């Protein structure tokens, strides 16, 4: 089966710091992969490279067989961990923005998700709380029929009730033809949805495998394993 994401020895260096030190990671269609690691381990850097907004210093990353660019941006649905929506926008403007730019955007699905997330389409983006903004971003990202979903800390700053709702939205809207890569610190909350996990430390993948096999072999939950690897 062709990999939807293929990363070969990807390195990213800044002036005096190496953020990634040769990351090898392949993701096949239909998989939800958890990319887990502490702060500064290189998770976000890797996701930004896959999303096409950072360029690797060395190595190569291919999305659906293509180097990140215009094509890959049309098949990747990326949720960054910042507030990137424009302040003047209302919720419905944000939906229309995505509809205008992404051919795979499903407006009907977006409207269903807005209702599910209790979001009023007449609200302005700047009036939304952090959790509501996170829900809106997720609504926009999940309303696309993308080949690869990249979610960077989708549960960041969200209360436990909303977390459950967001996780349900992710699971219910995930198609088996797509793949998803998620980073999070809240491993315990989210580990149930992972098919595979990759532990990243200091810019390197230190453990990678099927989530269920890892649980069985190590006789530990992914959360316990995470605490052991990064203690």
């Amino acid at each position, binding site marked *: 089966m062709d990999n939807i994401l293929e990363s070969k020895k990807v390195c990213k260096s*800044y002036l005096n710091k190496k953020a990634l030190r040769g990351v090898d990671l392949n993701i096949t269609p239909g998989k939800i992969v958890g990319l887990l690691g502490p702060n500064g381990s290189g998770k976000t850097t890797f996701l930004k490279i896959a999303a096409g*907004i*950072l360029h690797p210093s060395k190595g190569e990353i291919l999305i659906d067989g293509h180097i990140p660019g215009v094509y890959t941006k*049309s098949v990747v649905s990326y949720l*960054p961990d910042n507030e990137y929506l424009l302040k003047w926008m209302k919720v419905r403007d944000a939906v229309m*923005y995505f509809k205008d730019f*992404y051919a795979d955007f499903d407006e009907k699905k977006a409207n269903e998700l807005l209702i599910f997330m209790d979001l009023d389409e007449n609200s302005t983006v700047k009036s939304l709380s952090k959790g509501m903004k996170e829900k809106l971003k997720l609504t926009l990202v999940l309303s696309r029929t993308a080949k690869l979903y990249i979610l960077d800390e989708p549960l960041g700053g969200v209360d436990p009730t909303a977390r459950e709702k967001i996780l349900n939205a992710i699971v219910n809207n995930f198609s088996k033809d797509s793949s998803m890569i998620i980073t999070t610190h809240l491993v315990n909350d989210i580990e149930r949805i992972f098919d595979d996990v990759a532990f990243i430390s200091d810019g390197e993948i230190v453990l990678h495998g099927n989530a269920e096999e890892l649980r069985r072999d190590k006789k530990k939950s992914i959360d316990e394993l995470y605490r052991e690897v990064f203690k």
Partner: protein
Amino acid sequence: MFKLIKYELRATFLTIIGICISVIIASLLLMTRKGSWNTDIVTGLSVCLTIGAIIVISISSLKIMSKYLFGDSGYLLFTLPQSGMSIITSRIITALIQISIVTFVALLMCNLTLAGSIDFSYLKNFKVSELLYFIISYIWMIVYSLTLIYFCMIIGKVALKGKKLGKIGSFIIFIILTVAIGWLSTKITTLLPQTLNLNDFSINTQSSLINSNFAATGGVLNINIASTIFDILTFVGLFMGNSYLIDKKLDLS
């Protein structure tokens, strides 16, 4: 690309309206002072108002690009399936529209303040070709300047990753590049002084137009051929450079 322009204009709609309304109110206030203040003061203030409005809208449109490069909103723009060329073209066209709207309103109000009525009869003194030449020159000046400034901003961001360093670096690069291009243009004009008369397309080999790539004197429109070619080539280089840097080199922090 046109969708990008649509959203860019929506984003700055209130800024444009705000500047236009401010210019109109300030001009109306100036008109009420016409009898009591010295005419020179009213004229000076009206001209300052026009120039000020154009500067404010120009800075405002540059700040939008700066926000895309250094702020979070870049994550929205640069993850769209749009090429660097499409992004830079939409930014230039949007800024041109914004600046033109404000320039038009400001000049209109300046005319109204100074002449007491909106009078375009003086335009009859110009030939259609001359008006066309001035419009093209105006568009060229804005498009060229924006392309140069965007290039400096993008290369500053690419070369110096930090926000503060990137912005200062962009400014320094802008000064160096402007001086270098100006110096080269002057040298070229001195070495190759041949000019093209746009009225009859005749070539003048006399170096009467000192260090200028165009001039409009006594109804005669002259452009320095070599300098104009240099400007066009510089523009193409900067434009392609912008597109390439966005596609291949730009890293968002």
